[in-house]
């Protein structure tokens, strides 16, 4: 009897389990029983990739019963394209938006051009909500706007490498050439040291490249992070700032900016800098020359494990070994200090069309929420468990991909899903996809910048008053300083006279901004 009862209970329990499993499976299926196509504009990805052609892309499509209608954008034009779409009411369902200018967001919200996430969304999509807590700006923007209009993409979450976050760009230098010209291999180089090394490379031409040699190749935008900023931080970083008197002034008009520009012009005039740096594609054109053409001595690129791995892969294609060819280092000012502004721990955002269908919005949020979960992060960064990665005895992730990278095995992996919300920089600290030495290098340079950035006049704090200030005058004074400086460098005539004329011209639109800022925030 007792045995029969036990059997009956067991059968009943099993039946309940099966039933509950079935119900939950049914519920899950039911949640996605309708196939949806979601248009999604995304910057920095390749055109013509079939996102469902490999198992990785298919996993996403099947899991969420979605066809991703991907609209690739290049970093050269993504802001312009999105502006056209947003302002013409022709925005894709979801878009990866730069969110470089706060005033633009205010403008869009005011005009109801972006979708306002429903109140209480954080209770439903908890992984996204959690990811937003890593970005201080998210809460501020939400409070200022009176709701959530964008999901800001955090760079770091649980592996944030420093309290005050520095900018990770590093120098990528030809190690073999540095050795050949007798330059010391070290972790930091001042502007003057870089100039000196470039001169030696140009004079000795260790690669025997003749006219094709580019001792330095840094494209216009990246030059904005090298010069004049390493002489005077406010030249590009936080150009509106309070001087000693507590009044707001404009950094580009400071004589120290001219000092930095003189060095910049020297690089160009001496033939150290690529003679056509201004024609290179933004952000990547310079490093392409480094690893595709192999004719560049010094460039700058992301100081992240993924980028180092990319250099390794691409250099191998032209027969060069990363460990023999690349030396990474931090560029510092001639004062030996780190010059930049603190990073807000975010890069770009995801925004939704104001006319997005509710079902599509919820499905897109489910996709993003999964991407921000631990399971999603593991999948995004490492692929399929027990196929592409596993957990070893010590509890650490172990790579099963061998020599192949995730992107090589699944082209769709690097194309779209990678930075859906959380950027890969955080997971890179534990990902077995990147070699331990790369991960250690990233940590080392964050620590080094922390150490070299103790002076708040060179490693600036974020001025939140300015960061989230907008006005018509501020909009009219918007300019891309890196492009403006490149123009000055390439202009005929005396640099100082040209710079003075330029400052005088710009002050007509800058002065109204300074007047506003001083009226509101001056000490």
């Amino acid at each position, binding site marked *: 009897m007792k045995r029969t009862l036990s059997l009956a209970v067991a059968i009943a329990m099993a039946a309940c389990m099966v039933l509950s499993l079935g119900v939950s499976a049914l519920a899950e299926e039911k949640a996605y029983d309708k196939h949806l196509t979601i248009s999604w504009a995304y910057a920095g990805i390749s055109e013509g990739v079939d996102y469902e052609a490999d198992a990785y892309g298919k996993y996403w499509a099947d899991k969420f019963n979605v066809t991703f209608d991907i609209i690739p954008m290049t970093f050269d034009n993504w802001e312009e394209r999105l*502006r056209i779409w947003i302002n013409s009411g022709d925005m894709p369902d979801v878009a990866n938006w730069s969110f470089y200018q706060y005033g633009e967001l205010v*403008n869009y919200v005011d005009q109801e*051009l972006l979708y306002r996430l429903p109140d209480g969304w954080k209770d439903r999509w908890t992984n996204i909500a959690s990811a937003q807590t890593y970005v201080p700006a998210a809460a501020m923007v939400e409070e200022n706007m009176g709701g959530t209009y964008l999901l800001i993409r955090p760079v770091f979450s649980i592996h944030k490498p420093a309290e005050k976050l520095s900018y990770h760009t590093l120098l990528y230098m030809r190690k073999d050439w540095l050795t050949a010209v007798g330059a010391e291999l070290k972790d930091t180089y001042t502007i003057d040291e870089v100039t000196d090394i470039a001169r030696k490379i140009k004079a000795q031409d260790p690669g025997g490249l003749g006219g094709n040699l580019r001792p330095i190749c840094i494209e216009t935008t990246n030059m904005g992070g090298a010069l004049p900023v390493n002489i005077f931080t406010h030249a590009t970083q936080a150009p509106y700032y309070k001087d000693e008197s507590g009044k707001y002034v404009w950094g580009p008009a400071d004589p120290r900016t001219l000092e930095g520009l003189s060095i910049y012009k020297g690089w160009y005039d001496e033939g150290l800098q690529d003679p056509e740096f*201004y024609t290179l594609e933004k952000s990547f054109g310079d490093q392409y020359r480094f690893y595709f053409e192999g004719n560049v001595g010094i460039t700058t690129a992301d100081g992240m494990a993924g980028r180092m791995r990319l250099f390794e892969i691409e250099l191998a294609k032209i027969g060069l070994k990363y460990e023999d060819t690349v030396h990474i280092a931090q560029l510092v000012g001639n004062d030996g200090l780190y010059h930049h502004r603190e990073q807000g721990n975010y890069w770009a955002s995801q925004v939704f069309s104001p006319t997005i269908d509710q079902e599509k919005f919820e499905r897109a949020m489910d996709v993003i929420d999964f991407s921000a979960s631990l399971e999603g992060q593991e999948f995004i960064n490492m692929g399929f468990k027990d196929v592409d990665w596993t957990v070893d005895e010590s509890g650490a992730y172990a790579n099963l991909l061998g020599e192949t990278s995730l992107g090589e095995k699944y082209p769709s992996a690097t194309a779209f899903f990678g930075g859906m919300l959380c950027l890969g920089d955080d997971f890179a600290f534990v990902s077995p996809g990147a070699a331990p030495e790369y991960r250690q290098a990233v940590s080392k340079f964050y620590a080094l910048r922390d150490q070299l950035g103790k002076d708040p006049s060179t490693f600036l704090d974020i001025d939140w008053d300015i960061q989230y200030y907008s006005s018509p005058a501020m909009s009219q004074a918007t300019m891309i300083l890196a492009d403006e400086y*490149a123009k000055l460098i390439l202009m005929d005539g005396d640099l100082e006279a040209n710079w003075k004329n330029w400052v005088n011209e710009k002050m007509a*639109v800058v002065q109204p901004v300074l007047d506003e800022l001083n009226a509101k925030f001056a000490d």
Partner: protein
Amino acid sequence: MTGSRRSPRGGLARLSRDIWKSRVIYMLVLPGLLWYALFVYAPMGGLTLAFKAYRANKGIMGSPWVGLANFQNVFRDPTFPKVIARTLWINLGRLCFEFPMPVLLALMLNEIRMPRCKKVMQTVMTFPNFLSWVVVSSVLTALLSMQGPLNSVIERLGGKAVPFLGNAKIFLPMLYVSSNWKSMGWSSIIYLAAIAGVDQEQYEAAEIDGASRMQRITRITLPNILPTVSVMLILAMGGIMSGGFDQIFNLSNAATKDVSEVLDIYIYRITFQSPPDFGFSMAISLFRSAVNLALLLIADRGAKMMGGSGLIG
């Protein structure tokens, strides 16, 4: 004198009668008129944006009026007068170096005796017009870059590579040369059509009188196509504050910004390369259209004063 005057009512009645009489022909004009009304005149309502602070959620009509504030902002920008001067300079250059080329080409093509050769030449010259400026500028950039074929030739001949793309002095000649290469053949079609309409007896008479080929060109062909040239010149004057966006946008870079930012590029930059301000952009566009209209009227009057035919009246 008084007898020749007609009362307006009589004229209207007569016009109505004429229209009714030829109603089938007038029906053919109707789609064109509708197209014009819908796509040319109706959108002109958007010009009110120049006097409004545009809000997408309120639409053009619902956006608040701001008077001349947008124009004040336009003229406060120190870049604006420079852009105007640059636009005029570049387009006057186009009138000098681009406008006469299709006329010359048409005259030369007309002198080719072998019809097959003439057709081939015309096709070859017309073809580049169908290439987009994106394609043409990519080819030019590759051709003129420091590592491009042109510089390779210069270096092989013992010279030093020239930064063509970064030389502001070369930018304008490059615009004119590339524009002529691309559009000259296409633009010459209208002059070839005008030449085709010249009475052949004039040529035969001139030949009998012993006129040389050059004399026939200068004394017969050119005077006969002058009305067409005059109309085309007036139209070109009407576009002197605009045009060339695709070409300049694709060929310019930071090095040439100071010689390449024309009004169209400026409007694009204000509208799409910074937080958009459609009122501001519209104010500039309206200003540009007003200047274009004024120049068109001046050119028209000038053509008439010189004894040519105008466009208006």
